[in-house]
């Protein structure tokens, strides 16, 4: 009977979205917990983050399998196809996010063996808060299918970059001042880089959401400061 087929089809699509939302929730918690474990020097929490990453991988595989099955059996078109593809793309981004969070937690375990460095871990914490907030915003946008919120996240990526640059300078200063902090400083540097890349994944997700809802690729220029941006602009042709 036709209604039944469509109902099951709709259920499958909804289930896919729900799975992605759940995976997003887990990835979000992984990032927040990883940063927390570094800030509080919480070894147990860091270990939990490392262990939980396997679940994220399993969810990623599961979503991929379900999406492929859905494409094979239902041949989705138009918005249904975009929704399926977006679920797959989001799963990849979220899986990467989880890997980066795991890496942060692992480095946190090493840092916990040494002396505490409050000002530096506080900077990492601040950056981590910012990044997890963006991740949360973009996942909220996905759950509620709100383009504006996704675009807002996309537009504010330079905040994360600024934080990263500031942290980079701060860490360099520390390491130059006291060579004993180089090991810890390097780990913190990598953590900052990981956070910055999590931020990039959040912008990727925002782009995917835009594609899912509108069917068009997001082609805006990212607001990023560069020294030669002004010069690089093509000169208007003078009417001769």
């Amino acid at each position, binding site marked *: 009977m036709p209604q039944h087929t469509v109902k099951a089809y709709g259920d499958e699509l*909804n*289930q896919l979205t*729900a*799975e992605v*939302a*759940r995976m997003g*929730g*887990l990835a979000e918690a992984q990032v927040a917990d990883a940063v927390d474990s570094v800030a509080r020097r919480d070894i147990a929490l860091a270990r939990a983050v490392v262990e939980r990453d396997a679940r994220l991988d399993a969810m990623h595989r599961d979503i991929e399998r379900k999406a492929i099955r859905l494409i094979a059996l239902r041949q989705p078109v138009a918005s249904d196809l975009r929704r399926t593809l977006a679920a797959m793309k989001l799963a990849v981004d979220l899986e990467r996010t989880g890997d980066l969070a795991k890496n942060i937690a692992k480095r946190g375990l090493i840092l916990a063996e040494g002396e505490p460095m409050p000002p530096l871990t506080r900077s990492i914490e601040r950056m981590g808060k910012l990044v997890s907030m963006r991740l949360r915003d973009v996942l909220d946008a996905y759950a509620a299918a709100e383009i504006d919120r996704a675009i807002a996240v996309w537009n504010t990526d330079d905040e994360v970059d600024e934080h990263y640059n500031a942290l980079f300078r701060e860490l360099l200063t520390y390491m130059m001042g006291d060579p004993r902090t180089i090991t810890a400083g390097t780990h913190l540097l990598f953590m900052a880089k990981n956070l910055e890349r999590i931020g990039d994944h959040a912008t990727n997700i925002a782009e995917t959401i835009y594609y899912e809802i509108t069917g068009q690729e997001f082609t805006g220029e990212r607001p990023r400061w560069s020294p030669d941006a002004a010069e690089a602009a093509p000169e208007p042709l003078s009417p001769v």
Partner: protein
Amino acid sequence: MPYEVSPSPVAPRAGSRLWTAGASTGIAVIVLVGLAVYQPALAPYLLGAAGLIGLAAWILNRTPPAPAPSNDPAGLAPSQAALETETTLLESVFEALADPVLVVSGGEADDIAGRRIVLANAAARDLLRIQREGGLLVPVLRDPAVLEAVDEALFGGLTRTTDYAGMGAQTRHWRAVTQPLAQARSGPLALVVLRDETDVRRMELMRVDFLANASHELKTPLASLSGFIETLKGHARDDPKARDRFLDIMATQADRMSRLVSDLLSLSRIELNEHIPPAGRVDLARAAADVVDAVSVLSAERNVVVRLDDRETSAPVHGDRDEILQVVQNLVDNAIKYSPASGTVEIVIRPDIALDEAAAPWSGGNRGDGATRLPLVTPDREAGQRYAAVTVRDHGPGMAREHLPRLTERFYRVEGQKSGERQGTGLGLAIVKHIVNRHRGGLTVESAPGQGAAFTAYFPLAPRREAVTPS
């Protein structure tokens, strides 16, 4: 078809008269057919009998069933009404609960899309921006720990409390209590109650930060003191010139420490009194005049003119005289500290204004220089309450918008600003905030980089008497 096998709303109840009639007719038909096959000669009589039985069954079917109410208790109508009012009462109670409450249904254990929100009260709908019923749970509440707790409540029958952060622009901390509900026909149900724990968390965080900051602030002058003592004991012992200079610096540092400690003490005293409304009566205008006189030495030192317009106004407010003085004093101190040499600090008293006027920008709101205004403390609105306001305006470097909300935090300093030789303790505005709060008054700040800053504190006006108690 007259009889549907599936349970439909019109299907006869088991044991009803219709079932009996149908069953007996069926048996009669089978018997008749059996007889007809066994003895075909009887067929005409049997046909007649069948007709009779059919007629009887039809008549039975047509007659309305025996009046049901006769079996039921006599007082059904009122009890039903009572039940209804009780349901609507329960419903309205559920709706009115201040904490967000959700009822979640389970579906299959391994199907995450099966977790649906069966019911959500008004607070939950506001918070999660969802419909009253039928939404998927996962998109709105995707924290893994909470989802796990919901699963445990649904399929394991466990009650659990989970803390999580999330939802909304500002990070809020929530505590989710998940409980199993009685099994319904459609499957297991669970109750999720959310409670906002943000304030509790924030208080904890503030306490920790405060301890760290206070000890840090005390450590700096202490370190320099012990450093100089070491030097004086060592090679500077016989150098009178250096000794004098060092002693001067030490005196400054000791002074700074004692100011810090006294500020901390007064802050803790004010905090203790914060919920006790002040009893006295103070003239705000006269307090301002007193402060201007008191700071004349400091302002002359820094070559800053402190101007107080019309000293003749009287603005009696409810308040503790020392505390009101401290508010004005701290604001004027700050203004002088951040004023450039030979600058001016203006103090304006507005003796009788409404709350909206008090909270409005003192310059009328159309400065056009991009200055932002931010209320730091806002009193509860009370109808008809009038206020007296004191505004202290300086022409110093001003502050950017992002610093304004944090000004009243303890030890908060605007980056890149020096408060001159006389360093502040970083507690001045925190003290002002607490005093204003205790007096049920308000505090607003208006500033922009390069444009100076204007702080306005306002207090509830005391009813005018013929002779204002000299303050």
